């Protein structure tokens, strides 16, 4: 009981600190903008720990963060192999293949109006589909290894990326294109100097959306069959053994990988689209 009261007190303290920081004089500094979410997150973690211990929640329902950290630290080797299998082999190769294929198709679509009108409605429709449903079929075709996961990821990232890139390529105004025409620029030159740069914000938006889709695809595909390693395999077998600390460790790996991946793309985006209003504003 005291632990739960301590958790509530901690929450009140964290909240009061955040209110003070967010409404105080230093609220627009970079330090405050980083500190406030960090305090919020740390408070949540501490409350989780205290409430789970205080209310004696069984660890098969919700293990406290300290247990998860312990299990994580004790199994780094295993989790690293899972990470290589699922993220590096499955998700990353599928991500690269799918996005490159979508980009090339977008260039093709851009050159042919017939394809644009025929393929784009289909692309919009396919982007809304539960593509995860193809996982059992692709696992059946490509076997249990990472190749089938990459195939699922390719299918999942292809259409969102295609739709985004095509939208980006038609972003330039008629005036700008006319200017290129008066310079007698070829299609390739127009593409390279005008339309690709203009499309970059859209392309990066597509890359960001598909980065999380790629992780989801690779992990869900492992539920339909995988070798004896991989994050999806770890999650589904550890649930079977009611080893929830291990499940959460695998989730932490996935979350770290996802956040890191997303962050990396955002960083590249900021370097390459420094001229765009959305990055220039801050």
């Amino acid at each position, binding site marked *: 009981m005291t632990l739960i009261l301590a958790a509530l007190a901690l929450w009140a303290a964290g*909240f009061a600190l*955040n*209110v003070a*920081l*967010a*409404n105080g004089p230093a*609220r627009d500094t970079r330090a*405050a*903008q980083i500190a*406030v*979410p960090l*305090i*919020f*997150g740390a408070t949540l973690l501490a409350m989780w720990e205290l409430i789970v211990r205080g209310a004696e929640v069984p660890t*098969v*329902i*919700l293990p406290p963060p300290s247990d998860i950290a312990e299990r994580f630290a004790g199994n780094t080797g295993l989790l690293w192999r899972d990470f290589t299998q699922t993220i590096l082999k499955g998700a990353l190769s599928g991500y690269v293949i799918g996005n490159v294929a979508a980009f090339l198709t977008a260039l093709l679509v851009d050159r042919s109006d*017939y*394809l644009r*009108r*025929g*393929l784009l*409605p*289909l692309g919009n*429709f396919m982007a*809304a*589909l*539960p593509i*995860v*449903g*193809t996982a*059992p*079929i692709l*696992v*059946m*075709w490509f076997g249990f290894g990472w190749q089938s996961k990459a195939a699922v990821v390719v299918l999942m990232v292809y259409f969102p990326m295609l739709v985004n890139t095509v939208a980006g390529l038609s972003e330039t105004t008629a005036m700008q294109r006319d200017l290129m025409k008066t310079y007698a620029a070829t299609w390739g030159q127009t593409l390279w100097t005008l339309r690709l740069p203009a499309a970059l914000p859209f392309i990066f938006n597509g890359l960001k959306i598909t*980065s*999380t889709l790629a*992780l*989801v695809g690779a*992990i*869900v595909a492992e*539920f*339909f069959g995988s070798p004896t390693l991989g*994050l*999806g395999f770890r*999650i*589904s077998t550890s*649930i079977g053994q009611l080893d*929830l600390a291990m*499940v959460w460790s695998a*989730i932490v790996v*996935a*979350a770290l990988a*996802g*956040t890191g*991946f*997303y962050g990396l793309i955002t960083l590249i985006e900021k370097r390459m689209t420094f001229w765009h209003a959305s990055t220039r504003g801050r």
Partner: protein
Amino acid sequence: MSRFIPPLLGVVLALLALWYAAVVPMNVQETLTRAERAEIPVTPATAVERRDTGTWALVFGNLGALGESWSLDRPRLPAPHQVVAELYDSTVTEELTGRRGLVRSGSLSNRGLLYHAIVTLNATFVGFLIGTGLGIVLAIGIVHSRVMDMSVMPWAIVSQTIPIVALAPMIIVVLYSIGIQGLLPKAVISAYLSFFPVVVGMVKGLRSPDGMQMDLMRTYNAPTRDVLTKLRLPASVPYLFASLKIAIAASLVGAIVGELPVQKGGLGARMLAGSYYGQTAQIWAALLMAAGLAAVLVWAIGAVERRTLVRMGMSR
């Protein structure tokens, strides 16, 4: 509209042709085994030799024996008409003539695809409603409170990089172990997936009134509540609908993934069962049904959107 139909038809027909063509190499091993049993001469005579031969060599070496490619019982890739036939069998035929069908028993057959689609649809709707409601409430909180904006928003973004779908089996099993089962666990996953697009869209929408409009409200000395109900909420409607279209597709995915671990009906359960028993046509039929559902749901939201925006005077 008519500008789009001929090219769309052309692309779809091309895809179907590609599909029929792909069926041949995908199923060549099985087809040749059947041909051998029917005593049609096949070039590498035994199955063992054929296993080590390349796919294309098999296809072009046995052009005369490929007739059954499109009518196998358990193909690796079923032909389009086989999928359509399976869809028809598991909906119309099952309900009309099946022992547990609508005609004989008065309720939907639990072997039919309609029943599974309705199970999935229920979870989708409940999850969508919960997710949308929570999303709107949180967005209102974020717009009105600096603390919430600064502390919750970054975590909401980080939470989206966690593949929550991967958590689905655990959420289901954990909720099951404390006695919550059936519709609600699936709806929780759907709600989580549909929640984020709504938050982001609504925050953007609630902040969309420009300085001039906000100033007008200030000259009226309008209280915060009136600014919210009379300016911010109406202004956010177009953003809300754009988010709802994404959210409903996401919550359908959530419901399907939520059905994987607990095999109690639904399109996800149907796909997994199909993959266990090698019933490829069944998986494809379930997939097609899910595709149809997604299309209808997104279209329905779009229809409501058009009517609402016309009524509100935002479009014609």
